[in-house]
């Protein structure tokens, strides 16, 4: 079943067309990577899906419902979670309170349990009571992911999750994303090609705002146009 479908999605800033005519179909349970050179429009594209950027053209459907006009917070309630590229946690609150803000939408009875699970899955179980500002950069990124998980989303958008993580932390994150496959769909923007090739079911390549190629990792890797535009051949 298709979970996310965009049709002719476009965004222009002044005269510049950052994204144009993007039609995307992401199936439920899929891990979809979006790659492309800097300035290709990846962040603008997922920003429109999450509701952070208003599209200039096109429509977005989520689980069969047109969400193009919905504000961001309503889309979150429908199940679209977004983790920030530049870490955006509540630095004055504890890890527990950070995650609690994400987890308190649902049932009150198992809330503490859900908070604990989210923190454990990203490996921050020991840091429950610590203030977010006291965490290392990598741990703050993981806290950000834990907040996304605690929303129990149907679609999890991850904008450059491995940026600034150490080797070991990247491996942990990959294991986590693979484990998520059974419960949520993932839309992943990522520069680290090893991570993309290891995780993605399908890859969409953006170039200058438009879709250049799309397919399974092996096919994308073999695509001559992609190599020319991006993979640095």
């Amino acid at each position: 079943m298709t979970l996310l479908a965009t049709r002719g999605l476009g965004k222009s800033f002044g005269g510049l067309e950052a994204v144009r005519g993007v039609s995307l179909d992401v199936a439920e349970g899929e891990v979809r990577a979006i790659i492309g050179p800097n300035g290709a429009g990846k962040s603008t594209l997922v920003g429109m899906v999450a509701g952070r950027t208003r599209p200039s053209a096109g429509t977005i459907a989520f689980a069969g419902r047109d969400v193009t006009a919905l504000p961001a917070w309503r889309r979150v309630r429908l199940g679209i979670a977004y983790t920030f590229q530049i870490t955006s946690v509540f630095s004055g609150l504890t890890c527990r309170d950070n995650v609690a803000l994400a987890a308190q939408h649902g049932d009150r009875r198992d809330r503490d349990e859900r908070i604990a699970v989210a923190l454990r899955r990203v490996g921050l179980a020991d840091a429950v009571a610590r203030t977010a500002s006291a965490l290392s950069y990598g741990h703050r990124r993981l806290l950000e992911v834990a907040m996304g998980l605690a929303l129990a989303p149907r679609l999890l958008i991850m904008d450059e999750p491995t940026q600034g993580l150490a080797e070991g932390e990247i491996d942990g994150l990959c294991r986590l994303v693979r484990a998520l496959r059974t419960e949520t769909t993932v839309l992943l923007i990522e520069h680290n090609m090893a991570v993309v090739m290891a995780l993605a079911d399908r890859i969409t390549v953006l170039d200058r705002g438009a879709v250049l190629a799309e397919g399974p990792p092996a096919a994308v890797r073999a695509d001559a146009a992609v190599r020319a535009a991006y993979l640095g051949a």
Partner: protein
Amino acid sequence: MTAARRALPALVLAGLFALQFVLGDYDHTNMARILVLACFAVGYNIAFGMTGLLSLGHAMFFAAGLYGAGFSAELGGVAPPAALAAGTACGLVLALAVGLVALRTSGVAFMIVTLMFAQACFLTILHFNELTRGDEGFVIAETARRFALAGVVLDAADPTVRYNAALALFALAYGAYLALARSRVGRVLVGIRENEDRVRMLGYDPYRYRLFALTLSGALAGLAGAAYALLFAYVGATFATTQYSIYPLLWVLLGGAGTALGPLVGTGVMFVLVDRLSGITSSYLMLVGLALILLVVLFPKGILGTVGQRRARNRS
């Protein structure tokens, strides 16, 4: 530590209750005034300290309560408890109406918009001079301040009644603040103060939560204004001037923004300072100005915030 912390509110309220048997006549009345104004400051703290909404117009909510209660008691012949409720409702409704418009802006624009709305309210009071008696104001008659509660006739002019009524209202505001701070909603409000964008991306509409905070804040300011009118028998336009929008900001900054007891501490300290100083010079406003500047430059966290910080540092 946690047990002591849990018992703190009860201890504070018990201490305030006991205080009335110790204080002399003059300080007794002053303490009742401090408690009512602290209720105003607690309301301000919900908007500013907890949610990060820096309003420069809270005098209009206080004045709404003041006039709402004053008119109902003096002109409408309503008993004090009902007048108190009417005043609170005026503050609440005005805050809701102002919030619906002003909360479309944020930051500096929000500060100026609230300042302008409050100024318009003040000018409106002056404009309807015949009804409000403008700057001069009016006194609420003795008879309008007497009421029966559970069969006992109480007189708001009686010092004991006044002190305990003020304490009860402060306890209500203080309790409301504590309950909110520990609730789901309170956590969202703090989240908005810290990082609005992230809160939105966690599925909350910041506008609605801000509107809730401002409305509750305005209702408490209205409650304080209504109590002030009924307990101290005077209603006047001075309470709607910009100065009365700056005072709660100063009290909260002084005591510690976003702390439960900061508003009481700040109000008390500032009240006593101004009171003692007015024996020496009439320009106590100089003190107000200097305090604002020194707080912003040197102690942005206020008394309780700074103490809390020290303690946290010593512990680690």
